[in-house]
């Protein structure tokens, strides 16, 4: 029972969605299923919040090391949740001022927006920006021209790095634009690499992945691959 029901759900949903591509009469079934999927995806956000709460509450009650940080997580979590769920400080929708809950919780000036603008945004953006530093460090310590393959990788990277800035233009601007060697200008060369070599490599990867996805999807829908239910079989 624990295994059979999910397998049937997967198979039925999958079958409906696949045939809705080919039998126009069943198209609306597919639409319903994908809309439900979106709703469930939104519920998954709630699940994410709930799991977070559970994990950190446990950490605090166990007095695990770093439980103070769990307090911070819980504190910011509940504060954000409160201002968002209860629409604290949100003015009503100007078209319906008599409905107090009609306001836009993400609108500029609301406390929820404040959390986004001054906490969420700088934190996530800075986390991402740190990559520039790591990439520099990796360049110095990890990218070695160990063999021919690595030389190809690094050489291509150099051409792209130079060709996509003013430096590339500056270095090879002496090559005439309409002469037979115009293709050697770095900005031209980088375009050529992208459109031929990169396209060829990525095309093979894309075709391979498409086959892999089709194969795996098939196994999942037929119940041959049950790893998503946990466990190997």
């Amino acid at each position, binding site marked *: 029972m624990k295994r059979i029901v999910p397998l049937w759900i997967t198979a039925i949903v999958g079958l409906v969605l696949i045939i809705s591509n080919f039998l126009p009469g069943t198209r609306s079934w597919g639409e319903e299923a994908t809309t439900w999927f979106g709703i469930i995806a939104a519920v998954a956000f709630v699940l994410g919040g709930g799991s977070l709460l559970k994990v950190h509450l446990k950490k605090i009650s166990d007095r695990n090391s770093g439980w103070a940080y769990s307090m911070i997580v819980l504190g910011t979590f509940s504060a954000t949740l409160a201002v968002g769920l209860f629409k604290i400080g949100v003015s009503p929708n100007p078209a319906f001022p008599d409905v107090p809950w009609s306001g836009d919780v993400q609108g500029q000036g609301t406390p929820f927006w404040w959390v986004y603008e001054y906490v969420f945004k700088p934190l996530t953006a800075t986390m991402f920006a740190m990559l520039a530093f790591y990439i520099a460090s990796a360049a110095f310590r990890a990218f070695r021209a160990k063999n021919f393959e690595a030389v190809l990788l690094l050489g291509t990277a150099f051409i792209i790095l130079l060709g996509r800035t003013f430096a590339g233009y500056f270095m090879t601007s002496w090559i005439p634009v309409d002469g037979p060697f115009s293709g050697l200008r770095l900005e031209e060369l980088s375009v050529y690499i992208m459109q031929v070599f990169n396209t060829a490599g990525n095309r093979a990867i894309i075709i391979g992945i498409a086959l892999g996805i089709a194969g795996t999807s*098939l196994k999942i829908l037929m119940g041959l691959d049950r*790893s998503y239910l946990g466990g190997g079989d």
Partner: protein
Amino acid sequence: MKRPSSLLQTNSLLAMLTVMVMISGAFAAPPAPTDVVAEDLPADGGGAAVVTWTIPEGVDGLEGFQVWRTETVSESTSRVGNERGAALLAIQNQAYANEYQRLVDVEGVAPEDASMQARAVARQAVIDQRTSVTPTETGPHGRFWVLVDTVSDDTDRLQVGKLSPSDEYRFMVYTVAKTSDGGVEKSAASAESGMVLPVASGIDVKRLPLFFILALLCGAVLFFIYWARSGRPITIRKIAGLSAVDEAVGRATEMGRPILYVPGIQDMDDLQTVAGITVLGRVAKTAAEYDARIEVPTSRSLVMSAARETVHSSYLAAGRTDAYNPDLIYYVTDEQFGYTAYASGLIVREKPAACFYMGCFFAESLILAETGNSVGAIQIAGTAMPSQLPFFVAACDYTLIGEEFFAASAYLSGQPDQLGSLKGQDMGKIIVGAVLIVGCLIATAAVVTGSESLMHAVDWFKGSVLSA
């Protein structure tokens, strides 16, 4: 700074043309097409109809035909609504202007007050006259028509797309001919066609090639799965990097440091995560045998439970259920960088001896791999994300590139299903190679020899088989 909509221009142009046509048509209009028939396009996805007609005989200077269709209910509603709105607005403006003028000139009311009173009067005028405004609803045959398309003089058939499958349509056709003085004239409207409902049919024929190709690829996979299940051997080429798993786990045991396993940051619906969990099963089993501690922070709660079950069964298989600690497999956060920050912090704090990154990765790949590198861990990565491969290739000891990752998962699991499907996919690649070689050669031959039939063959193949 919007330029005037050219739609308006075309409309007025059309109106002018119609007027011109009407004027010249008064002299000697060409005969209208006959036998106008409209039918639903068979075997399609709905929303298309075919209109046919008979070309009238002996028309001098025949230019082509105009096909018109009836409005749908919603088109009529919105047109009527707009026309009524415009009419009422005109009434309101007129009433306002009259009343304002009267108040200011005759009664000598101050402008501000006059404007206020006039607006009230204008408002009442709208309310009073709202029922008296009836928009026009005329055209040939007592209907309102929409121009669909104009076609050339030798055409007697038009496939009309972009119709609504839930609305009924009628069609009519005009003959357009050149007059002797160089102008253009239009015939009277043809008789209208019967009602047609462009419904979707049972099967969309245009998409059948896609269905067959899908069936072919799936068939190959299924065939080899059953082939493998029947016990026939399936060889998979050696995948460098897999043998390193034991080495890495062994080293972690020696050093007494934990193993970090990151199954990507996507949910269980991503196949890479599934493959990552499969590999986790193997790594956990080895870890259980070696008695090494394996820690799995996950970015999705579903992945957490899948990972727990997988690791649990691995420990079970290794006979070490006592050592299984579900608390080491836990959910952190869905947020990409919240998760990355946690995981990289963990690496710095716990200094794992081996790090596995198997799954779907985005920007965090570099942070994780670089941080892992800085604590001197053996790192093994596997992902099908092409953008992250250069970093794993550079910063990890072994990397499973793209499909190699899926192959490794199949290889590790040793299940006939996995191996068979891998073989089936290889068949797909053979098909791709063959089609590419043959296709390119034929296309080249077509260009070099200039053969029309070869060119048509290539175009047909590309147009209807490869783009369903």
